[in-house]
C-alpha cells in the first residue's frame, strides 16, 4: 500500500474497495492489466466488509459469516500486482478519464484507459420532524462505529425504520452487548401482500434463511412495534424523545439515541458528475446509471459495478465487479480475456445472485410519508430548507431541483445535494404530479467531495510538474 499513485496512467482505475471494487481489481490485475484501486476508507471492504482487515471484533459469530467472506477477497487483491491506495478521495472524474485524487491533503491526477466505479450505496434520507437533532443518526453511521471501533450504544436507544440492514445492525449491536430499547418497524403492512408474488424466488435465495433467523434473534431480545406509520424526534437542542403512531396507538418514549434507516440507494454522485446518463428506478425508488450487460455507462470507458449500479447486495456486487473487469480486459487485452471464464458464466451467477431482490425491494419499499416530508420538516440540512419552502417555490414556478436553487438554495451548501437529492426529486414530483424521471435530479459537479483551496493551489502547474510530484 502506498500514499500516492506510482504512475500517471493506468489501464484500469477502480474507485471503491467494497465487494465490487475488490472483485474488479482482483480480476483486472490477474489478467495483467495495470490496475489502481482507490478507496476512501482506512482499509478495504466498503461498508458491508468495513474494517475487514483491522476490526477489533475477533469473535466471528458476532459480525456473521458473510462479513468474513470479504477477508479472502482482500487477501487476493493484496497479493496481486494491483496498486491500492486507502484514504484516497476521488473528487473529480471527467469523460477524458482523468481522475482527481486527494490523499493526505495532496491532490494528483491520473489517467485511465478504463474506469470502474464501485462507489456503492448511501443510506436513503429519512426526513422526519427532528431528524437533524443531535442524537439522531443513521444506522449506517452507527454500524461504521461498531465495525471499526467496536462501539455500541449504551444509553436509551430506539431504532426506527425497515430493511435488511436495520435487522442486521440490531443483531450486531445486541451481540456486542449494546442496548436497544425499542425497534419501530415502519414496513407498510400492505407491502407484505405486494411482495407475495416475489416470495418464491426469495425463499430460494441465500438471504431467506439468514434474514429470518436474524429477525427472530432480535425479536427475542427487543420489543418491536410493527406498522409504524408516523414518526417524530423531539428535544431541546438534542434528542429527548421519539413519538410514533402505529394502528390506533400513539406513544412518546424517552430516547438518547435514535438510529434511522430505511434502506440504501446507489451512490451516484461521482457518476452523475461525469455526466453519465441515469434513470429513475421506480422499484428501488432511486437513480441508477443506464448500463449495458457489461456494466458500461453512456460515457465511453467508464463502467459501474456493485450497489452503485442498483442495489443488489454484496454477492451481486462481486459478480458485477468481475463482469465489468472482464469487459475491460476484453477491450484492453483480448488474449488475456480468452483465458477467463466466458461472460455467460458470470451472467448465470448474476441471475442467481439477484434472485429475491424483487421481494426485498417490494417488501421494504419505504412508505411515502417517510420519503416525502411535509410542513416544517427540514429537507436540505445544509441550507435549512423545509418541505414547505420547497412547495412554496413550486407554487410560484420552480420546476425541478436545479431550477429550485434559484428560489431557496437547496443543494447549494457544503453537501451539494448529496443528502437531500432524493427527497427533493420525490417531493417536487409529488407536488407537480410528475414522475421523478420527468422532474430530474441536481446537476452534480466536481469536486464530488470538498477539497481545500490550499490543496487545489498546490496542484502542480504542468504535466511535467505533475509527474515529478506523483513519482516523488
Amino acid at each position, binding site marked *: 500500500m502506498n500514499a500516492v499513485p506510482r504512475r500517471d496512467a493506468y489501464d484500469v482505475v477502480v474507485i471503491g474497495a467494497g465487494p465490487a471494487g475488490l472483485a474488479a481489481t482482483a480480476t483486472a490485475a490477474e489478467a495483467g492489466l495495470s490496475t489502481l484501486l482507490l478507496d476512501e476508507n482506512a482499509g478495504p471492504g466498503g461498508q458491508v466488509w468495513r474494517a475487514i482487515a483491522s476490526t477489533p471484533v475477533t469473535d466471528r459469530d458476532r459480525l456473521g459469516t458473510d462479513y468474513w467472506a470479504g477477508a479472502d477477497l482482500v487477501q487476493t487483491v493484496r497479493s496481486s500486482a494491483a496498486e491500492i491506495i486507502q484514504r484516497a478521495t476521488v473528487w473529480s472524474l471527467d469523460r477524458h478519464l482523468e481522475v482527481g485524487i486527494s490523499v493526505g491533503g495532496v491532490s494528483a491526477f491520473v489517467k485511465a484507459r478504463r474506469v470502474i466505479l464501485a462507489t456503492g450505496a448511501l443510506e436513503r434520507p429519512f426526513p422526519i420532524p427532528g431528524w437533524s437533532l443531535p442524537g439522531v443518526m443513521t444506522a449506517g453511521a452507527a454500524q461504521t462505529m461498531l465495525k471499526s471501533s467496536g462501539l455500541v450504544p449504551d444509553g436509551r436507544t430506539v431504532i426506527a425504520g425497515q430493511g435488511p440492514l436495520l435487522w442486521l445492525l440490531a443483531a450486531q449491536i445486541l451481540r456486542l452487548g449494546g442496548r436497544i430499547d425499542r425497534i419501530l418497524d415502519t414496513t407498510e403492512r400492505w407491502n407484505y401482500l405486494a411482495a407475495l408474488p416475489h416470495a418464491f424466488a426469495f425463499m430460494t435465495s441465500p438471504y431467506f434463511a439468514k434474514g429470518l433467523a436474524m429477525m427472530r434473534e432480535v425479536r427475542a431480545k427487543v420489543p418491536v412495534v410493527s406498522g409504524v406509520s408516523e414518526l417524530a424526534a423531539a428535544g431541546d437542542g438534542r434528542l429527548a424523545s421519539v413519538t410514533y403512531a402505529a394502528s390506533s396507538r400513539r406513544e412518546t418514549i424517552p430516547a438518547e439515541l435514535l438510529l434511522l434507516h430505511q434502506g440504501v440507494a446507489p451512490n451516484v454522485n461521482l457518476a452523475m458528475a461525469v455526466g453519465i446518463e441515469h434513470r429513475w428506478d421506480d422499484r428501488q425508488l432511486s437513480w441508477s446509471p443506464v448500463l449495458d450487460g457489461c456494466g458500461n455507462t453512456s460515457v465511453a470507458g467508464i463502467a459501474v459495478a456493485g450497489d452503485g449500479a442498483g442495489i443488489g447486495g454484496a454477492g451481486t456486487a462481486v459478480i458485477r465487479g468481475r463482469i465489468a473487469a472482464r469487459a475491460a480486459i476484453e477491450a484492453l487485452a483480448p488474449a488475456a480475456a480468452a483465458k477467463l471464464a466466458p461472460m455467460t458464466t458470470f451472467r448465470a451467477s448474476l441471475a442467481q445472485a439477484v434472485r429475491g431482490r424483487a421481494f426485498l425491494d417490494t417488501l421494504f419499499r419505504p412508505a411515502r410519508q417517510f420519503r416525502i416530508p411535509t410542513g416544517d420538516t427540514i429537507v436540505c440540512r445544509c441550507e435549512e430548507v423545509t418541505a414547505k419552502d420547497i412547495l412554496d417555490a413550486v407554487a410560484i414556478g420552480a420546476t425541478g431541483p436545479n431550477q429550485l436553487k*434559484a428560489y431557496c438554495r437547496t443543494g447549494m451548501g457544503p453537501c451539494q445535494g448529496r443528502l437531500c437529492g432524493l427527497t427533493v426529486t420525490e417531493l417536487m414530483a409529488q407536488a407537480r404530479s410528475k414522475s421523478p424521471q420527468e422532474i430530474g435530479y441536481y446537476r452534480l459537479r466536481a469536486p464530488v467531495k470538498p477539497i481545500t483551496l490550499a490543496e487545489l493551489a498546490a496542484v502542480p502547474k504542468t504535466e511535467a510538474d505533475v509527474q515529478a510530484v506523483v513519482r516523488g
Partner: protein
Amino acid sequence: MTKLADAIIVGGGIHGCSTALHLCLAGMKPVLIEKDYAGRHASGVNAGGVRQLARQVAEIPLSIHSMGIWERIEALVGDACGFESHGQVLVAENDAEFETCRARVAELNALGFTHEELIDGQELRRLVPAVAESCPGGVVSRRDGAAEPARTTTAFRRKAAALGATVCEGVAATNIRKEGGLWRVDVGADTYAAPVLVNAAGAWGGRIAAALDELVPVETVAPMLMITSRVPHFIDPVVILRGRKLSFKQFANGTVLIGGGHLATPDQDRNETVLNWRSLAVSARTVFELFPIMRGATIVRAWAGIEARTTDDLPVLGPSVRHAGLYHQFGFSLHGFQLGPGAGAVMTELIVNGGTQTRIGDLSIGRFHPSKL
C-alpha cells in the same frame, strides 16, 4: 397549429427574459422559446457581477443604462435578485498596472464618463482590507455590485410570464424562417408566427444568425467558476485583478466565489462542459497568495456556463442589417449579465419605437458585414 404573437424571442437567458419582460411592459405579447429552461446556461451560472467597471467604451452607455435598472430591480421584477451594491474594485498589483489604471480613468473622464475612479493604496486597503500591502492602488466603480444570477434570470422569466409573455421551456426553436411577412418558428408540434424575431440565444445565437445569412465571428466558450464553504466575513466589494485572471466575491452568507475567465472545454451539443482543474488551480494559487484567510476554505463546487464570445469581445445588439423584423441580442462575451436588464429595455425601444436614446451603434451586427471586414 400556428399561433400568433407580437414577437418571438429565442433564448431564455437574462437577455431574452429581460426583453420579454420589457416588451410586456410596452403592451406587447411576446413568446419566449427556451430549449432547456430559463437561466440554464451562462445567465444562471455566471459570477453574478453587476459591473460597469473595466468595460470597453462601446458598451459603457448600455452598461450605465442597465445600472439604473439594477438599482430599482425589485420594483421591476418583484424580487430583490440578491442584488448588493458594495462596489467593484480593480486592483493594480504593481506600479506599471497602476499607471495603466491612471491612463484608463483619464481616457474615460475625457469621454465624459465618471463611474470609474482612480484610488490610491490607502483607499484600496480601506475598501479591501485583506489586500496585500504592496498593491499601489486601483480603480473603483462604487455603484457596482453583484446579484444572484439564477435567481435574477428566474425572476425576469417569472415576471414576464406574469405580465402575459408565453414562455415555452424544454423545447427548441427550429426551422426559423420568414414567410408571408411573418417570422415563423417551429416549437415541437406548434408553430409561432410574429412580425418580430429576437435572437437572444447566447452561445447558440451565432448559429441562428448564420442560418439567416448573417455571419458573426463567434466562438463558444465556458468560463469556469468555483465556490467555497463559508468563511468569516472579510470583504465587501467584488475584486478583480488588473494583471492576473481573477475575480473574487464574498456573499452575505460567507461563501466566496472565485472566477476570472479561465476556460473549460464546452460541449455545446451535449449541454456539457469539462473543467480544467489545472487552470482552476492557478486561480486557487492567486487567491492563496492574496488572501491568506482563504487558505483553509474548501471548494464545494466548480462549474462553467456555456456562452458566446465574439472576436472583438463586444456583443451583437440591434436590428439585423439583412432582414426586417429581425433583432440580435447575443455574443455578450463573458460580461453580459449586468447588461441584461438594460439590453432588454433598449431592445424594446428599438422594436416599439424604432430607435433608442442609448448609444449602441458600435454594437450593431453591421460591423461584421463583409463590406466592413
